[in-house]
């Protein structure tokens, strides 16, 4: 359908047409202007309300992290009487948030690196080399996008168990990599296809080998795509809850942050250490705010890259 042809001039907007067509280069100003003001006014209220809904729970958590239990119960909306930094100390050491945090950094660091390395290697070969079975392997990877992880949860648990990698870092890391490959390859294969062939050919003529060509010529050229996918993977793997819950259940010292915080929240109920829980939450959220503030543009581009074809 053609949007222009289906646009009858609405009665409300008709009067100014007979008004002053000379104003501002043919734009009709009088009526639209008041309409703009009303619309923008209401819009501003809605936007501000949503911003408050997003910010307040987080800010409230940060404030509560400095309170003691009686303050949390008696005055949830006031500022803490004093800054009780000891809540953070308790969360970091006694509740092991520090440990969980570093575990998350280790696991996500290794698995994102592995995903990017293996993913880009596979995507590059699949995108730029013709060989028997190319399409079959490509579709094998891409079909993984359609399957829910829960379908495989039980067998996956036993596969990892049989390999002796239950409750180990390497088990989780390898599983993260495997489940990140479909999207990574899907996205990067499309990206490598768009890179010009002339550079690669020039490299080959200069006697550059296949792997050198990949690591020294193609990888740097694919940098924007690689960054987008890396961010996508980091955020996704950082947020993983289900897989570590199943794969690391008996190794509390290796738990990642999501698992740890969920566990602290259960224990906070028993021990009534609410301020400790708020402090733990703050430790989990604050670094994300800082990272987001710095890389906001890249993160938005990276996360939405999957949806924008």
């Amino acid at each position, binding site marked *: 359908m053609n949007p222009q042809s289906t646009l009858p001039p609405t009665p409300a907007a008709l009067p100014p047409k007979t008004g002053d067509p000379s104003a501002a280069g043919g734009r009709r100003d009088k009526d639209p202007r008041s309409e703009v003001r009303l619309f923008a006014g209401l819009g501003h209220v809605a936007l501000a309300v949503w911003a408050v809904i*997003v910010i307040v729970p987080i800010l409230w958590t940060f404030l509560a992290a400095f309170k003691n239990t009686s303050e949390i119960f008696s005055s949830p909306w006031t500022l803490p009487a004093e800054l009780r930094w000891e809540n953070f100390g308790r969360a970091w050491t006694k509740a092991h948030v520090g440990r969980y945090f570093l575990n998350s950094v280790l696991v996500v660091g290794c698995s994102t690196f592995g995903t990017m390395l293996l993913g880009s290697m596979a995507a590059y070969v699949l995108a730029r080399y013709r060989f028997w079975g190319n399409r079959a392997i490509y579709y*094998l990877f891409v079909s993984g996008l359609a399957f829910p992880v829960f379908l495989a949860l039980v067998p996956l648990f036993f596969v990892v168990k049989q390999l002796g990698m239950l409750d180990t870092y390497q088990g989780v890391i390898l599983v993260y990599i495997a489940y990140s490959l479909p999207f990574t390859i899907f996205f990067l294969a499309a990206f490598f296809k768009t890179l010009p062939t002339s550079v690669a050919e020039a490299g080959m003529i200069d006697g550059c080998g296949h792997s050198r060509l990949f690591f020294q010529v193609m990888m740097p050229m694919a940098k924007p795509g690689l960054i987008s996918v890396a961010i996508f993977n980091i955020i996704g793997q950082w947020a993983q809850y289900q897989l570590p819950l199943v794969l690391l259940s008996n190794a509390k010292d290796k738990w990642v942050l999501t698992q740890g915080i969920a566990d602290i*929240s259960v224990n906070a109920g028993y021990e009534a250490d609410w301020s400790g829980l708020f402090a733990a939450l703050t430790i989990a959220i604050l670094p994300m705010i800082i990272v987001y503030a710095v890389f906001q543009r890249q993160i938005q581009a990276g996360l939405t890259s999957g949806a924008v074809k």
Partner: protein
Amino acid sequence: MRHGKYPFVIGFLFAPVALYVTFVIWPYAQAFQISMTNWRGLSAPQWVGFDNYRRLLDDGAFWKAVQHHGVLLLALPLITIAIALFFAFLLNVGGKSSGGQRQGVWGAKFYRVVFFFPQVLAVAIIAVLFQMVYRPNESGLINGVLMKIGLEPILFLVKPNLALWSILAVLVWQAVGFYVVLFSAGMASIPGEIYEAAEMDGASRVTLFFRVTLPLLWDTLQVAWVYLGIAAFDAFAIVAVLSVDGGGPDGATTVLAMEIYRNAFVYSKYGYASAMGVALFFLTLTFAALTLRLTKRESVEY
């Protein structure tokens, strides 16, 4: 590019394919097989054919979970997309127009940054955060206020008919920002001349939205619907952490992922849990196929 092509290709593909087959393809294939057995982990699995699936049909928890997916599947995309579209429209074309160039409202950049932020947080962390927000006594963010002004506290997560909606609200809270950014990108690619032309014809903001923005954004909306639908079929982390005893009260918020997890790793009913997994797989597939079929329409060229 002739010499040494195959060793290179095999060398580059070996590790990724091996990893992928071991941890993804092989478990998926096994899931179908295990779902036909009564395996409990101790003795060798016995073949029981479709028994597990027959039992699924009489399982109240399973049907409750399916029903909740139905609710989430309709409500989550509908609410999220409606809010996100409204905001995206305001942020991109809601402001004044100068020389036909549509502008967003004042502060658009700030709003976009703030709205998107929850997307960066892990769902499990958000679930813990909202446990505090929803707490049923003075220490809760919402009930603290309600009780201060003398109202009865709302038992968000304890009341069976309210619990699922409370969880849904958190999912919407997290998702809106992502779709605002997604729709903004879509709106930015709509040529300004179209808006200009529509304005010349005297179209109001509302008309602009329904007659210009919406039809030209159809493809993006379709993608959003599929994404949110897939999210509605997952919802494990949020239900496991936020709801009262994992899908409670009394199964009022349970989802299939929760039931799979419980059957497999609490009751050790591996065969039965796998059957649920297969059911979930076909539900997801049906949804994706239906969505693409139902929303198919001629896309607008511009």
